[in-house]
């Protein structure tokens, strides 16, 4: 039997949601009938709006999808303006202030505290410069990810940016693919370093050569069924298909139509295509794709480039895109480290100005929550690097700052078990001050995800942290499961979960002890990932103990039970939500 969500989608879904959204916005929050809120919140996701958690009623997270993370000249300033004017909530975050932008692990932008009443104006502003929120969430083609420097990278074989653009244009707002059984995440990469992260996407295009009519051609091998969520992580699997760039949209249409027709609409927990790949195997999936959804003969897979994959592969070759790198045209791109991906709005304004002044005005978001300023003229590179803003968003950051990723967490998210972003900021700073970096390590990945949805991609980090609870002195406290040794590369590997339910204030001590053991016991030149890989479960558990240090964690209490974890009076009953379009509290109907 189709799920309730499927029934709602049958009634209204896709593009048509917008008219309803605009009508509700016009009439205000209270115009959404209480018994229809669940249905509308589910539908609003398709237009990039996610209702915030308990205690924050009437406020939304807004996601802006920027394909391949490309923010074109003029767009960043508008993003800052929208955040400045509309993403100011009733309370301030102690680390980031009262207005900020989040750069996400899918090269998108998230704003919080958005009021329904402001959405028409926000859409107008965003759309005036070609930005949008369509399909940023919901059961459809999501924001397309890829190598963030596509078209500006010396390592690429195919400029994948036009391909990502074509997929974006073809499948955004396309009614044929607007109602899928579940989200549909796509990665397109033309470089030979693997930085599109195709291994953890539903559909991946990876560069490959193929001999066609006696000539070697460049195109993409197709992989399917990757994803990290719900303690069921899968790497994508080869479909044994190659396509030239001009047929990328055809295979995308075929695969997403296959998912539309054969995906599980009766059980949302089983709906992602990774489970259909599990059930069918890739051979059957290829046959069904060929027979039912394609009108040309699919070539078998070509010669891939996976042996060159260095991105997040455990070494120091290419862990991310931070730093100064020359483009093929002689200009430079400068990757800036944004700790946990969050940037205060004043800094976003300033970065927009600097990108205009020193580059083309374009910036790009990475899948490591960082931002890249592209097209910096070689003559002006040094002056750009001297800009004061780069002291906080460094192209040469400390390894613990550089490698930190965190999801949204209990600050706003219904799913999360623990506070994440502010905690990870405090972890990174403490580690930087107190823990010796093992020799040769330039980039150490620590990913903190508040729950098993895995938005911070914890399973592909050197140290994986995932939200949990434990008791300390009898009292429930926020805790983390700790995994080790995950990463991508030619042979990707999910982290092995080693220490479970470690109280959050004992995690920095654990990492300190762990890295001391690593430094003492590693073989010459051995990477952390290699060190973990050669040890069995028991040996891994003996590597280090968790312990308290002088690290202080202000978020040990049940942050989910607060209306906002950082305010003095954080009691749920003290929440001003829901509010009207002016931010004034609306008294509950039964008061």
């Amino acid at each position: 039997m189709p799920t309730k969500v499927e029934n709602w989608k049958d009634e209204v879904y896709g593009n048509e949601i917008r008219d309803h959204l605009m009508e509700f916005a016009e009439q205000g929050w209270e115009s959404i009938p209480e018994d229809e809120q669940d249905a509308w919140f589910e539908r609003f996701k398709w237009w990039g709006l996610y209702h915030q958690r308990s205690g924050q009623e009437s406020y939304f997270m807004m996601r802006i999808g920027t394909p391949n993370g490309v923010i074109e000249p003029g767009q960043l300033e508008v993003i800052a303006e929208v955040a400045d004017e509309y993403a100011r909530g009733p309370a301030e975050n102690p680390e980031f202030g009262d207005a900020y932008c989040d750069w996400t692990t899918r090269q998108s932008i998230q704003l919080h505290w958005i009021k329904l009443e402001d959405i028409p104006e926000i859409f107008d502003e965003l759309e005036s410069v070609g930005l949008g929120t369509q399909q940023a969430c919901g059961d459809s083609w999501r924001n397309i990810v890829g190598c963030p420097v596509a078209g500006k990278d010396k390592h690429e074989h195919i400029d994948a940016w036009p391909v990502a653009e074509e997929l974006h244009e073809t499948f955004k707002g396309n009614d044929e693919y607007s109602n899928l059984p579940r989200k549909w995440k796509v990665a397109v990469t033309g470089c030979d370093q693997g930085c599109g992260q195709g291994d953890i996407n539903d559909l991946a295009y990876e560069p490959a050569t193929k001999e066609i009519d006696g000539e070697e051609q460049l195109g993409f091998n197709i992989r399917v069924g990757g994803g990290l969520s719900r303690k069921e992580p899968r790497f994508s699997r080869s479909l044994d298909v190659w396509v030239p760039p001009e047929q990328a949209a055809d295979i995308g249409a075929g695969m997403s139509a296959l998912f539309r027709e054969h995906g599980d609409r009766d059980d949302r927990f089983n709906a992602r295509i990774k489970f259909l790949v599990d059930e069918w195997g890739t051979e059957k999936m290829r046959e069904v794709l060929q027979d039912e959804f394609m009108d040309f003969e699919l070539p078998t897979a070509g010669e891939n480039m996976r042996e060159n994959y260095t991105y997040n592969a455990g070494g120091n070759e290419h862990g991310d895109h931070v730093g100064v790198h020359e483009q093929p045209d002689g200009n430079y791109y400068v990757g800036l480290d944004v700790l946990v991906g969050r940037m205060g709005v004043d800094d976003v304004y300033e970065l927009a100005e600097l990108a205009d002044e020193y580059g083309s005005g374009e910036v790009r978001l990475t899948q490591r929550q960082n931002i890249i300023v592209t097209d910096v003229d070689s003559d002006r590179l040094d002056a750009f690097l001297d800009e004061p803003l780069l002291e906080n968003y460094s192209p040469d950051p400390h390894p613990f700052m550089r490698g930190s990723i965190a999801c949204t967490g209990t600050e706003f998210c219904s799913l999360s078990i623990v506070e994440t972003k502010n905690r990870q900021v405090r972890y990174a700073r403490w580690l930087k001050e107190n823990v010796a970096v093992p020799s040769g390590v330039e980039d150490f990945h620590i990913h903190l995800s508040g729950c098993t949805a895995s938005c911070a991609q914890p399973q592909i980090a050197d140290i994986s942290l995932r939200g949990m609870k434990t008791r300390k002195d009898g009292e429930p406290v926020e805790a983390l499961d700790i995994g080790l040794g995950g990463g991508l590369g030619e042979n990707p590997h999910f982290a092995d979960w080693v220490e479970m339910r470690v109280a959050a204030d004992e995690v920095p001590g654990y990492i300190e002890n762990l890295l001391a053991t690593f430094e003492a016991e590693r073989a010459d030149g051995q990477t952390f990932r290699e060190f973990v890989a050669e040890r069995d479960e028991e040996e891994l558990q003996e590597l280090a103990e968790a312990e308290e240090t002088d690290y202080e964690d202000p978020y040990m209490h049940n942050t989910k039970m607060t209306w906002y974890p950082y305010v003095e009076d954080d009691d749920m009953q003290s929440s001003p939500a829901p509010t009207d379009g002016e931010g004034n509290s609306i008294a509950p109907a039964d008061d």
Partner: protein
Amino acid sequence: MTTDVHQLDDGAWVSVNDSREVNVSDLWLLARSDFCGCEPTDFLAEGFVDVSVDHPNIEARMAGRCISCGTEGVTDWLQVGRVIDPESGEFYGIDPESVHFPDKRRRLGRPQE
């Protein structure tokens, strides 16, 4: 009016009559459960897998973990609240931190200690 229940947002919520009522991330104390060997089981709810109505009780099966021994899995049906009057549809949640008995037959067969 019948009482309508479902889970939402990847199992983050139990929704009762289209109102989000019970959220993940609470600790539930489960007595006499066969979830693990702990007594009581100190259970962290990470997701709602199934929801149903056994009038007047609203029940759910939760995916999660005992934070004492680390056992992972899905609980038996567990009462998460009540809708006493289906006409009004008003939901009365129960306190996760009180002691819960997932297996009702044993609860009825043995007096509470």
